[in-house]
């Protein structure tokens, strides 16, 4: 009788199963523990420094004491510039990709490829480009405007891809209905497609804002280091992530302020994310009621 026993002995299988289970559980516990450690450090070292005056006063003594008010303002303005430039451009490109060009056609593949490449470029390389193009070639110097425009280039692919997938999720029946009613394509876009895709568009927008806010490397050589309150878009302004970097690397005794700023940044990011989810939910509920 031929030997057909191909299964390994049961004892081996039992040991293997136990090992895998133990490995999965211990890896997970380790990740959870490291996260708890990170969170404890952020709260433990950062929370003590944070009060109302930390958020509303200027940094003193290279940031060791005082607050982060001008830094928050610079961060906000840089992000607003980035989104104000990237959002309309991104939405228009997304509409073209999702509504006009043929799916899988040459135009779509070409634009898609260039967006994928753009999304893969490291942020420090965006910093190099921003420095050479916006600061020097366009003569903007180290300014909030140059930093914002550099970030706009960085978040553009994210905005386009999220808006495109949002528009593609709108059912085709709605387009047919609009065409049957004799609506122009422009009216269909403004009255039907964009309102219908609004939750996805907003979620993508928030993702872009979050990405822009967390960015450091692209800003060091475009919007610069100056920690005074900016008085115009042509002033240099220090973003909060650059502030954290500077305090931790270049300022002895700046760790506590760095942790406090890091905590502020993370709380801002979480707030933006929650706002995105909340807005998307509200709009979704309204849309379902409409149907």
């Amino acid at each position: 009788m031929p030997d057909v026993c191909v299964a390994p002995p049961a004892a081996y299988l039992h040991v293997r199963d136990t090992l895998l289970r133990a490995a999965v559980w211990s890896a997970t516990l380790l990740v959870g523990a490291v996260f708890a450690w990170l969170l404890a450090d952020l709260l433990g070292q950062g929370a003590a420094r944070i009060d109302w005056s930390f958020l509303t006063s200027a940094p003193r003594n290279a940031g060791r004491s005082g607050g982060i008010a001008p830094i928050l303002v610079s961060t906000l303005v840089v992000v607003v510039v980035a989104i104000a430039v990237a959002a309309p451009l991104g939405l228009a490109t997304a509409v073209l990709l999702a509504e006009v060009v043929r799916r899988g056609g040459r135009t779509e593949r070409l634009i898609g490829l260039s967006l994928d490449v753009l999304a893969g470029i490291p942020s420090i390389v965006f910093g190099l480009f921003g420095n050479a193009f916006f600061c020097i070639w366009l003569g903007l110097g180290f300014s909030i405007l140059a930093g914002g425009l550099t970030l706009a280039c960085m978040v553009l692919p994210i905005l386009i891809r999220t808006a495109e997938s949002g528009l593609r999720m709108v059912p085709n029946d709605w387009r047919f209905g609009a065409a049957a009613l004799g609506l122009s394509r422009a009216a269909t876009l403004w009255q039907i497609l964009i309102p219908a895709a609004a939750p996805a568009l907003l979620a993508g927008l928030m993702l872009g804002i979050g990405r822009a806010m967390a960015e450091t490397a692209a800003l060091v050589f475009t919007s610069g280091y100056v920690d005074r309150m900016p008085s115009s878009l042509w002033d240099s302004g220090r973003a909060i992530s650059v502030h954290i970097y500077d305090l931790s690397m270049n300022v002895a005794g700046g760790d506590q302020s760095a942790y406090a700023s890091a905590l502020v940044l993370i709380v801002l990011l979480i707030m933006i994310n929650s706002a995105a989810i909340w807005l998307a939910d509200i709009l979704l509920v309204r849309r379902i009621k409409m149907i």
Partner: protein
Amino acid sequence: MSRLDRDTRLLWSLSASAVLASGLLLLIVLFLAAESWPALSRVGIQAFFFGKGWHPTEGAFDLTPMLVASLATSTLAMAVAVPFGVASALFQRFYAPVLFGQIYLWIIVLLAGTPSVVLGLWGLTTIVPLILWLAPPGTSLIAGSLILSLMIMPTVALTTDAALAALPQSHWAGAAALGLSREATIINVILPSARASIFAGSILALARALGETMVVLMVSGNVVQVPTSLFDPVRTLTANIALEMAYATGDHRSSLFVSGLALAGLVLILAIAARRSGGHVVHA
């Protein structure tokens, strides 16, 4: 204004935006190339790989130590991140009680959203002193790799998780009918079916690690040398750009653009490889 006019105008503005958005890449490549050209033409491309050290003010532009450091920190980071990422996804899908799994997923998403400069700050104040206690100077190749792995682990975890979610339930039914244990099903059925996605996620994670600046700049010591041990301080390509861009002029500045171009090329090849492998890719 008639309907057709409005539609034509809309189409024109959409096309103009799309041309601008996709032309941006061309502009970036053009500017990087133009800024790199002085160094490339005067020093020659082989001087960047077989030169006599990195002494940019004396005209020696050997990028090899930085290239080795970049590859070493990021491959090591990937080697740590992939098992943890895959284990995280397996845990969240197949092991965790529902509530626990939700919390864990929330942790992974938060970790994915943590700015790299914050991870760098944390690494510098907690991990580096621990490594200093083991072997000075603390800021080292291993410190960079560990913090990088923390940064890219969510990418692997979320990509794997998406791949696991896309697998048909019938896999489990079939395995159950054959009397396979949960672990046997994972090893013999689930992981092989999700292999392409796990591979894509890992390559994407490697690309992110190679392109990351802040973490390696803050925790890996920034000494230009080919590392001989895990505890040697190293300087990656990205950190080199960040450190020297502030004061570089002439050929020196131009050589930094060369390293930026090389870095972008390297990362892009990886990104394309990840996309071609045919797995799901999650942007995290």
